[in-house]
């Protein structure tokens, strides 16, 4: 079986440099690369040519479930399963169900958002090759990293582009 191929990791000093690098890689048609930044750099997803996330749809689904689930539950419990005369009010009084339905909607949406986030980002994942880069600790501090994944067909092309842009510490990290 073939050697597992290494990942190429290097970094830039400023968001701007990173931005350009990403644009270049994008324009060269390189797909399997990623940027690692201490904070979200504005517009970088365009520079990298990323598609928008599906997260909102997940949340919408959860929220709707919450809304209808909660309303049905209340209606069935107090209107169908065990109707009681409380303060002479109708057993199934929808006006009274609004607050609870609302809260459950929010709750399920929040769960959807939280778990959806980690699902889409495939986290937690406690190991990733890029972390082997000697200066990795600056990736969450003040440097702006780029990594080219082994799966990238134009691997060497990408390396040249980055070199040309003066990327620092270009290192190939084993998986």
């Amino acid at each position, binding site marked *: 079986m073939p050697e597992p191929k290494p990942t190429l990791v290097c970094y830039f000093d400023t968001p701007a440099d990173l931005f350009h690098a990403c644009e270049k890689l994008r324009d060269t048609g390189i797909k399997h690369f990623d940027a690692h930044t201490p904070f979200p750099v504005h517009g970088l997803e365009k520079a990298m040519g990323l598609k928008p996330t599906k997260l909102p749809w997940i949340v919408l689904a959860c929220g709707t479930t919450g809304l209808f689930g909660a309303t049905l539950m209340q209606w069935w419990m107090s209107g169908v399963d065990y109707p009681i*005369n409380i*303060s002479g009010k109708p057993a199934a009084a929808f006006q009274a169900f609004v607050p609870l339905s609302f809260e459950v909607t929010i709750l399920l949406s929040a769960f959807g958002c939280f778990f959806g986030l980690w699902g889409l980002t495939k986290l937690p994942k406690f190991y990733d090759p890029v972390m082997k880069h000697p200066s990795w600790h600056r990736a969450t501090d003040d440097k702006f990293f780029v990594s080219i994944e082994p799966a990238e067909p134009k691997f060497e092309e990408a390396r040249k582009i980055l070199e040309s842009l003066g990327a620092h510490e270009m290192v190939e990290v084993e998986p």
Partner: protein
Amino acid sequence: MRRLPILGSSGKQYWRSLGELQGSAEFEASLANEFPEGATEAPSGVSRRNFLSILGASAALATLAGCRRPEEKILPYAKAPEEVIPGNALYFATALPFAGTALGLLVESHEGRPTKIEGNPRHPDSLGATNLYAQATVLDLYDPDRSQHPLERGEKRTWAEASTFLASFGQGLRTSGGKGFAVLTGAHRSPTLAKQLAKLQEVLPQAKVYAYEPLSRQNVREGAKLAFGKLLEPVRDVAKARVIAAFDSDFLALEGSAIKHARGFAETRKLDQVQDAKNLSRLYVVESSMTVTGGAADHRLRMKSGEVAGFVFALAHELAQSHGITLDGDVLASLGAAKTTNGDKAAAWVKALAKDLAANKGQSLLLAGERQPASVHAVVNLLNLALGNVGATVKFVPAFDEASDGPESLLALTKAIDAKDVETLLVLGGNPVFDAPADAEFARAFGSLMTIHVGTHVNETAAVATWHLNQAHYLESWGDVVAEDGTASIIQPLIAPLYGGKSDIEVVAAVAGIQGSGYELVRATWKAGLLDVDFERKWRRALHDGFIDGTAHRDVLPEASTADLGAAIKATKAADDGFEVTFAPDVHAYDGRFANNGWLQELPDPIYKLTWGNAALISPATARELNVTDGEHVTVDVGSGRVSLPVIVAPGQADRSVALAIGQGRRQVGRVGKDIGVDVFPLRTSAGFGFVSGATVSKGPGTTNLPRTQEHFQMEGRQLVRETTSEELLADAQVIRKMDPISPPLLSLWHDWEYKGHRWGMAVDLSTCIGCAVCVVACQAENNIPVVGPDQVLLSREMHWLRIDRYFEGTQDDPVSVSQPMTCQHCENAPCEQVCPVAATTHGPEGLNDMVYNRCIGTKYCGNNCPYKVRRFNYFNFSKREITEQRKMQYNPDVTVRTRGVMEKCSFCVQRINEAKIAAKREGLDRVPTDNVVSACAQACPTGAITFGDLNDPNSTVVKKLSLQNELGYRLLDFLNVRPRITYLAKIRNLNPELESA
């Protein structure tokens, strides 16, 4: 074993062997084991709360007592049940001797345990209702602090030993002819006891019998003697009266046959149609401190008790002078000399009252208070006679006996003791060492004797007596009693003596050497008496009915015979300007005998809502004069003695008159009554027995936090208790409805639930409610409501489901007072229900606001959202704190005992409703027959002010009661649209136009 004539053949197996009741050695032994030390004696320095948490005696008692039926024939009131069905209550008729009369009772008994006292509807003096004390006696029966065995100089003795002692003691006396021996009784009305005492005096010719009652009615009897020349007792028929004048007399609550009086009064205040307002009676009250009677008055004149005599004389004089009432010349002269009216208002009253009385000859009624001197009673009797009321509104019957039970008899006894004429004394019940007049120095004399005390509790007298014999409770023993009007009742035991006690009858018999149990003695009395022919049948009838037919006296028509009256009138002391001290029975302890009764101690007094103890009532003006406020102490000094106690600033109290309640501050008492209240007997002398003038009152050191259940007595202009006068009502029938703060019809946002079956509801007639608070105790007894103690009442955590709100209107010094029973209104749109997160309080199909204890988690939100504040929360495990094996025996098995952390409230006696529904179902009926359910409060109410029933049943009493609901009916806080199920009927006063300004 004897067979029961009425009980079915299987009945006999429930009765127990003779040996037990007679106290065989084994039985005594078994009793001893039932009550290990510590369970029965209070640990020294035990706090009330500790007591309340003492976990009773060994469980043996419950099982043993569970089947402790007396073995003689006692008969259930219900028609011949085949046998006792566990879970089904039986009712037995008996009677309670009380305050110079007798209350015929029906006692509810579960598996042989009496649990609840009701009135006997056919008895002339209870008429199906009860008073506070009758309700509470069932708790006394199970009082773990009751005396449980004979004592010799404080040493525990068995009844076997006691019996031998009595036998030999009696033997010794009989040889000496009873020299130096005396018996001291209370004001008893028992033919059998009278007979035993007579026999005793036969065999012991030199023995003497004295009688003493701290709340003696001697003045009443002597008043009759002064007026008519013979000892007679008045029997009033208030229902026939149109004008009633009470002089320092609380005849609606405490004096004479109060229940009958109250019922009669209610009769004269009922409205079936608006026009009836024309014929309402008019109640005038002249008194020194606000009583239940004064609270119910149309016109109330506050004056010192000492001034009342002068006022009555002035009234008599006025009647004679201006209204042609004929009085004996000498009497008239002395009236003229002795009459006094303090102030214009009093003078105006004399004129107006005299006029009103004269205009209502034959249908007016005058009453004098028992503490007023005989001369006043005599004059009142003469006026009743002259006004033609005698034979109409008041009858006179022969006195039960000639014995004088006033303070003088105790003075005489002390004198005899000091003269060594008396060396051994047998005290039958009572507590003379505690409640004797101070100047009798009875305690000192008592100590120097060989004494035998018979009583249910180890009280101050028992503690210093040579021998103490534990007496059987009236629910444990055979006896008989004669009511005010002569009607006799057999007292039949509901349960065999818990502690093997004996009745006073049995003890006297033992001393006199008469053989036979109490049962046999009572039977003997009546076999020799009225029931001679066809005895057994009549006896059964008597036991079944609860009274003996045809024993009521035919009334004697007295004639004025006033030889000594003139002198007596002149001799009557007139009040001075100084401080006066008046003595009245304590609402909680009566004369001290109920001091250890938790229900009564925690019952708010009807007027000023004080629980757990007594206080000096002084008028606001006097409070300013003395510079004291509620709870601050005053020192009261009458020369012979001084006492320091807290005050209540009492609206309606006469100025410079200090009202004291006797019977609190007991020194030798059980754990409940320990350190409660102040003993005022040191101030009470034979001369100033009812009231005494010339006292000095000064602000004393110290303050007491008085545990009162109501602090605020103003209505703040809110339409809570609505009232009007008969005039206004006749002028405009809608006058009450016009008081609604919101007139347009109250609409609902949703379709209302329908109540097609039963629709339970209540009507409360404020015109007839006198605020006597019997309903509160009845509710407590029926519903296992815990006693929380003074510390919790101070935190306003009393648990009563039903309370009586008292409001004062008018000036602070001389207010008009109204009372309003307040309990769960069972709103159809109950605000408490919607806020409960777990649906622990919801609405039942018959419109009851149900409280589901075992679903309640105790958020207390329902209590917050209740506009009537009738919900009660178990802040601690109140029930557990007070529970003892004895207490368990009293609990109503049909009602849950609530635990810590749950909310509770009035259930409209849902257990009674369900009982009736089950009964109806058994008989195949689809609904409960008319008026088959009555709530405990409605049943106990003397005036019938509370009526309960099915609002969907056109024939029910409650619906009839509400015939005037469109004119007089209103629902409290109606504008909230919570739709209460309780309808209040407005209070109608019948004012005398001439006094309205006054």
